[in-house]
């Protein structure tokens, strides 16, 4: 009897706890319970742009870093995505780029091109937050350091020299489309004096020329930036989003746990974060927390393609029918619906048609459209009976990739191909990519702004993919494809025709298939942020965002 009472008591306690944690409608109100409560009065002003408001709290934006701790803030080391986010408003680039692939000046006033050589003219009044003036010799110093530190973008420059106090000449080492643009727009520059004054290569205390400066950096936890009151550039000449400073302070949180990011938004510990689309429902229209938050999908340049193992002993080598059986047996829309809740782009080429050098007409053409009957025919033509073939699908561990692999496994099973899914963490995956015995098919991620020929060149030009030019991604070694890619990538021969030739040939030969182009979901607190800005790289730019106090 006593035991029953104990059980009843505990069950009651458990139910009460469940009610407190899981139910109720307080969730949507809790954003205002946190430290940002002072801004609640402005919530309804929503998207009414930058109208002055009566905001009297501290002008601070709490932003999720997204990709976790960068480990170091050194602006000259090989760059990681999280470090880009953390330093892009502290340090500056020579140029930024537009979606059309054009450059605009940030530290550079303008540039001239002569063949492979670019003459870059700097503004002559650039100073960093410590008061050091930036000249051409600082640019050369930084490029030297980048090469020394293995920053791969800087390795595309054959030579560089200061030809005047504010003029630098940079020569690229190849004639491929947008080599200079893609390389230079990813590099940050600082003054030699500031860099040498730092005892640890600016790993925790970068001093840059940007509109913000580092106030505090607690590795693995938070990075606090404060406005640089002595920012050098005149407002009318600020062309980049990263040159604006609409809030006094930015606090980046390095939270990586997905559930904690959602809790952080709702408790007011975060004003902005990238979240999974499944978690975004409660912040979007009609969601429980919609009154205080806005959820938006933004385009990215990233995505995954399905590559075959094309090495000599692979079943796919010289068997185009088998490759077609696989590619036509996969329903890309099912992947997009099942894995990304419909929030991804169904691609029509390897890469995406959003690139400036991609032909928009490709959007109207067929691209391995799902056809299970045709896939079965191809399998028969390839010489395999249903259930006879078993393939290994390799991919880097992530929730998206795991789900995609399971869907592909199910679809290929329907046409009679067994698939073994092999999920490896990144280091192992990257090692196994160059081992032909480890996989039959793999997911291969590629992307980034620039041009579609850059993506193709990086993955399908064997002279770039390997130093000995033996093969490209997936051990693909087709001289005709090589010729087509080189022709399309070269500045002198690049045209709609040569680009289309690569696109058509990849489809004809069924060498690979882009599975999806990723979209990201951003959620921000509308009690404080009127409009959150993201740049061309789909990275958050809190300094350029519009707040209720602007």
């Amino acid at each position: 009897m006593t035991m029953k009472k104990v059980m009843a008591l505990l069950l009651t306690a458990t139910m009460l706890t469940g009610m407190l944690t899981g139910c109720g409608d307080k969730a949507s109100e809790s954003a205002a319970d946190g430290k940002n409560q002072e801004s609640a009065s402005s919530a309804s002003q929503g998207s009414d742009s930058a109208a002055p408001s009566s905001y009297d709290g501290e002008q601070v934006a709490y932003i999720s870093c997204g990709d976790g701790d960068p480990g170091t803030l050194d602006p000259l080391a090989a760059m990681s995505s999280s470090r880009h986010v953390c330093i892009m408003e502290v340090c500056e680039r020579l140029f930024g780029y537009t979606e059309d692939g054009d450059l605009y000046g940030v530290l550079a006033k303008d540039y001239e091109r002569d063949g492979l050589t670019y003459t870059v003219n700097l503004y002559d009044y650039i100073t960093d937050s410590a008061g050091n003036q930036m000249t051409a010799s600082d640019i050369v110093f930084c490029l030297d350091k980048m090469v020394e530190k293995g920053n791969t973008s800087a390795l595309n420059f054959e030579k560089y020299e200061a030809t005047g106090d504010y003029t630098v000449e940079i020569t690229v080492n190849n004639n491929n489309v947008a080599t200079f643009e893609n390389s230079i727009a990813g590099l940050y520059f600082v003054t030699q004096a500031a860099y040498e004054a730092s005892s640890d290569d600016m790993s925790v205390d970068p001093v840059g020329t940007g509109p913000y400066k580092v106030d505090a950096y607690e590795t693995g936890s938070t990075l606090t930036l404060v406005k640089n009151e002595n920012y050098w550039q005149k407002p009318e000449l600020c062309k980049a989003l990263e040159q604006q400073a609409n809030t006094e302070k930015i606090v980046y949180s390095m939270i990586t746990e997905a559930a904690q990011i959602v809790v952080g938004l709702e408790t007011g510990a975060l004003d902005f974060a990238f979240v999974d689309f499944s978690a975004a429902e409660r912040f979007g229209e009609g969601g429980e927390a919609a009154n205080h938050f806005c959820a938006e999908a933004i385009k990215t340049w990233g995505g995954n393609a399905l590559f075959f193992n094309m090495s000599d002993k692979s079943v796919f080598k010289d068997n185009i029918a088998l490759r077609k059986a696989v590619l036509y047996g996969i329903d890309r829309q099912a992947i997009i619906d099942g894995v990304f809740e419909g929030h991804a782009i169904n691609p029509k080429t390897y890469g995406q048609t959003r690139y400036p050098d991609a032909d928009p007409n490709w959007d109207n053409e067929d691209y391995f459209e799902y056809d299970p009957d045709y896939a079965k025919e191809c399998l028969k033509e390839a010489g395999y009976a249903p259930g006879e073939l078993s393939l290994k699908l390799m991919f880097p561990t992530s929730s998206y990739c795991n789900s995609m692999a399971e869907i592909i496994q199910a679809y290929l099973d329907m046409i009679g191909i067994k698939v073994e899914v092999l999920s490896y963490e990144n280091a192992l995956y990257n090692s196994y990519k160059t081992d032909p015995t480890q996989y039959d098919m793999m997911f291969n991620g590629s992307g980034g702004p620039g041009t579609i020929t850059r993506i193709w060149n990086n993955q399908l030009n064997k002279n770039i993919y390997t130093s000995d030019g033996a093969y490209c991604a997936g051990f693909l070694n087709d001289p005709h494809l090589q010729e087509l890619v080189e022709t399309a990538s070269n500045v002198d021969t690049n045209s709609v025709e040569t680009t289309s030739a690569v696109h058509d040939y990849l489809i004809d030969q069924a060498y690979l298939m882009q599975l999806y182009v990723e979209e990201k979901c951003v959620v921000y607190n509308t009690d404080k942020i009127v409009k959150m800005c993201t740049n061309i790289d789909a990275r958050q730019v809190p300094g350029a965002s519009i707040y209720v106090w602007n």
Partner: protein
Amino acid sequence: MGKYIFKRILMFIPVVLAVGILIFTIMYFVPGDPAKVVAGAEASEEQLQAVREQLGLNQPYIVRLGNFLSDTFLHFDFGESYITGVKISDELMRRLPRTLTLGVTTWLLTVLLGVPLGVAAGVNQNKFGDRFCMFVALFGVSMPPFWLGLMLVLLFSLKLGWLPSSGIGGPQYYILPCIAGSFGGMASNARQARSAMLEVIRSDYIVTARAKGVSRRKVIYKHALPNALFPILSTASVGLAHVCGGSVVIETVFGIPGIGLYLLTAVNSRDYPIIQACVIILAVVFAVIMLIVDILYAFIDPKIKSKYIGTKAARRKADA
């Protein structure tokens, strides 16, 4: 006693050395090329070779092991991260206090709550208190810390708004992680304490004491508990090492940048120097805890004490 402590400290050296050799060897043979992580997936073979040379990855096993042992144990230098180039010892100095704060506080909770719970269960065997305590212990053992952590966050951060959900700052940031991390250990301590108490209170000398009219309270706290302490101390000490070394889950869930999170990130990116440094630091922490426990044993266990008391007279006294 000094001799005993000295012997224990001497034993400490081969343990840490063996851990160093073991972790280096494991990392040497584990698949995955750190050069590819450093240089990027699109790096050419030439660039990869350059990175391998720069990091010393192209040297034979024995040379690398020698360099590692010499740098670590003779120069106390863990080197720099392959990925970020940041000095590892600096990073460890920033992170270790957080892990120790979390670990020690969690452990104190496991002991301060778990042992009294177990003692109460033991002295009230088969009664309501016993069943209640054991149910709580079972509950604690069964709940994964990451799940419990998230539930606590939902209740205390999201719904009630009393405590921060993640990150570091003041003491309030450690409350939820410590509670989430302590449940498993508390349950183990409670079960151990209960077993130990049950064994002791069935002893003849306890029955005699009760028969002589000594109060129940005095029998429990003065006669039974001190003798039940040995197994409890063993479990509790292993628990301290466990919470310090196994903090990775709690640090990840609560975003606490300690050694565990540092280690986890390094494992994913094959950052060998960080992995080796973290494992050695955790081994040292474990060894120090074991050393302290052994010394405590010596103080509370007359059998050990007698072996190391300096004079023959004293030894005779102890034997008597």
